[in-house]
């Protein structure tokens, strides 16, 4: 391949890049970011696989640098509302953490029905799963398991013994890395309320999500698993419960058959849904990394061999960070609520970060609606927050950008999106500058009939934060 003489020359980038992902336009990153990005790609397996002979990587770098903007558009400064519809209350802290906790997941579930709902927290950094009353102002959490970098927990009575258990997706490392330390762990509740860890699957890459579901309608619980991995590892997996084949007896651990649904890495979420209303559950997966897509998988006669992309982001720097299936327009089918704001690849705040609603029009056709720009958008949840009968949204941001502190201070870290008319959302900034909210969830903490907001905290550079700082903050809904 000839080195181009000028920036206007063209390179066979279509063939060069599209073996692994969509063709990235130079405009998606500033000039300064392209050399490291291209050289990193050049070290990976798929680079230039579509082209015969060797590729002059320097020419590719030169071309991207020549055609890229000097810098990306600066994010617009915002200010928090003078009288926001949510008010922050006292924070909840974990007792004596060794390091600043990183809340990767919050879940409200009835683990111990006699005591009201629990708030379950995964601390990715210190490797703990904690639970405490979700309704009490004095949370007093108990550590129910120590696991290496838990990413997400879901409540399920896996062994049908009448006691609620948890299944946990275990990353094995909070750092992005290819290894085989990922696990799926069942925290089995004993009669005395203790949770005993049972490893259901190990030797995996980093596991980001596990969803219990009776996917085949045979009456037992299967597990859909998003093994995110990193660059070389990762799959979308189904662990099919083979209880009927179980030889371990009624008290033994359930046995599962591993089914590889897709060999792609980068799956961060998986959810079961019947998107087309045919009575059969599909699996919907959110992919990050270079794929940046939402893909639905169907089970056919030959197994889980059919899939289609419901959404594919325009380029691999998109930064998908969360997905929720919810009937946002209340028309009887599940829509997709997406955030894209992951900036841990190059610490840049992107003008295309934000919150999007993919409206289900039936027949697997989804229409994209951009709801709000939010640098570092990382998590979102939907509920009728103001009691007017339609669904509203809240969203949080997580980012540690190499940006001026005054710029970061003027960015929204919590947003409320009030649905004022069908499909029309009014944005209210609840908080600015604290872009360290990896997760949030909604629960009526004060029993006033309106969902309150639980915001989990975490960041990778915790050197300026006390370990005893609040891990979760409750924001009370003031809409009434």
């Amino acid at each position, binding site marked *: 391949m000839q080195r181009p003489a000028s920036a206007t020359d063209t390179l066979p980038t279509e063939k060069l890049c599209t073996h692994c992902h969509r063709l990235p336009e130079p405009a998606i990153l500033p000039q300064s970011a392209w050399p490291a990005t291209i050289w990193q790609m*050049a070290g990976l397996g798929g680079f230039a696989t579509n082209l015969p002979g060797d590729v002059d*990587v320097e020419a590719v770098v030169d071309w991207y640098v020549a055609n890229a903007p000097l810098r990306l558009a600066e994010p617009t400064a915002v200010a928090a509302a003078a009288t926001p519809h949510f008010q922050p209350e006292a924070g909840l802290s974990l007792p004596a953490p060794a390091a600043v906790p990183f809340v990767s997941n919050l879940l409200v579930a009835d683990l111990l029905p006699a005591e009201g709902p629990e708030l379950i927290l995964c601390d990715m950094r210190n490797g703990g799963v904690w639970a405490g009353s979700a309704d009490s102002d004095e949370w007093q959490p108990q550590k129910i398991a120590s696991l290496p970098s838990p990413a997400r927990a879901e409540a399920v009575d896996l062994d049908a013994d009448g006691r609620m258990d948890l299944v946990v997706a275990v990353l094995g490392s909070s750092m992005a*890395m290819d290894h085989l330390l990922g696990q799926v762990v069942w925290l089995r509740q004993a009669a005395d309320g203790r949770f005993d860890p049972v490893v259901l699957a190990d*030797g995996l890459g980093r596991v980001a999500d596990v969803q219990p579901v009776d996917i085949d309608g045979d009456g037992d619980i299967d597990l859909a698993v998003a093994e995110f991995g990193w660059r070389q590892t990762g799959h979308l997996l189904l662990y099919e419960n083979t209880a009927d084949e179980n030889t371990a007896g009624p008290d033994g651990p359930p046995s599962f058959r591993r089914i590889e649904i897709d060999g792609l890495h980068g799956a961060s979420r998986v959810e079961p849904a019947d998107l087309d209303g045919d009575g059969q559950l599909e699996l919907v997966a959110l992919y990050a990394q270079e794929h940046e897509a939402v893909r639905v998988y169907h089970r056919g006669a030959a197994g889980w061999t059919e899939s289609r992309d419901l959404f594919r982001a325009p380029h691999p720097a998109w930064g998908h960070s969360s997905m929720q299936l919810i009937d946002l327009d209340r028309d009887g089918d599940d829509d997709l609520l997406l955030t894209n704001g992951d900036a841990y690849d190059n610490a840049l705040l992107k003008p295309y970060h934000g919150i999007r609603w993919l409206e289900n029009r039936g027949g697997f056709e989804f229409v994209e609606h951009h709801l709000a720009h939010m640098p570092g958008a990382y998590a979102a949840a939907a509920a009728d927050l103001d009691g007017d009968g339609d669904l509203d949204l809240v969203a949080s941001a997580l980012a540690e950008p190499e940006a001026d502190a005054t710029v970061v201070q003027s960015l929204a870290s919590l947003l409320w999106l009030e649905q004022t008319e069908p499909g029309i959302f009014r944005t209210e900034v609840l908080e600015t500058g604290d872009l360290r909210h990896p997760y949030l969830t909604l629960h009526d903490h004060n029993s006033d009939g309106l969902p309150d907001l639980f915001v989990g905290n975490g960041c990778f550079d*915790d050197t300026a934060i006390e370990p005893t700082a609040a891990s979760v903050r409750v924001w009370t809904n003031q809409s009434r």
Partner: protein
Amino acid sequence: MATPRSRRRFLLAALGVVIGMAVGATVSLNWSSYDALTPIREALAVHDLPTAARLLNEAAETHPGSAERALLKARYHRRMGQLRAFRQSLTLAANLGSPPEALEREQILMLAQQGQLSVSSAEVSELLAAPGDDTLEIYQAVVRGCLTTMQLGEAELFLDGWQSDYPDDPMPDYYLGLIDEHRRNWPAAATAFASAVEKGLIDQQQARRHLADALRSDHHYREAVTEYERCDQDDVGVLRGLAGCYESLRDLDAATRVYAQLLARFPEDPAALSAAGRLAARRGDHQTAAVQLARAVELNPSDMQAWHALGWTRVALGTPDEAQTAFRKAVRLSEQIQRTEHLRRRVEEQPANPTFRLQLADIFLAEGRIDDGLMWLRSVLQVDPDNAEARQALDAYSSTTEAAPAPPVTTF
């Protein structure tokens, strides 16, 4: 409008740091008249330490009882960072009748160079107020001290003054390159090292290697190869850099060849074993990779990349339990590397805050990297001379190692 440089000059003046202007009472060595020791002084002035060493040895024959020669030898050892030899030469100078003020000045310079005296201390302030003929020595010692204790902003102030007073001196460019290297500002580092080379830095090898490293880190692999090839090919760092460039340029045959050459000369170099092992794994030769990587982590248990590659090699060789052990090591080390990076950034943002320096010291000491840990402990005392935690830790280590003990709370 003030340029960054003029602004730094202004800050320097605001600090009361005015060098090279004092003409009053000076206790510096009197270099003003030419004598038989002048070539030694000139060699030191152009940072030609090998020549200075040779001339000092020759002068031992011609000036066996010269107090000034002994003092110059102490100065040479200080520049070389040879503490014990420095003390011996200084003691000899004292016995031969060197003026106490000159001896004290050399000691102050040594402490400043080691980062054990703050630039705002009374001792350094006195030096700066009356530098005599020692301006260059003062710049050198203070800048090295600032770099040792990661006071990069202050180092830049003095480097600006140094460049202004001695525009042809390549050393400030070299030190500026080191600062940019620390900040991972590779284009600026490459420019600074190239300037040091162009101005004729005596240690061309060192400057060129840094230049090549900066070019490589800035992804200019072909230019880096050119610079590495101009360096001494017996240098382990040069060969490692060269092989790394070939790997990045996807010329695995050339990389394999250089690693073979490297290991033939330095069979127990842990970084070479690590890099060669990783390349062997990349090429599918897991048996070779396993041997090289296992030895690499034996020699350097902190090598995260080697542990990680060893994990995958063990997977390929069918020993998954051993692979998991290697992966866990790699994960722990990667978390530690990330934390260290964050703390270094905090130190640069808040150089006067001892907390982050102490945390870095803890990490390195726990990891067995004693020299790094002690350096950070000493740097704590520079910004907080009364810090009891650092002092106790340093005293504890100095009783078990040959490291320099913590300086007294009140120096001199």
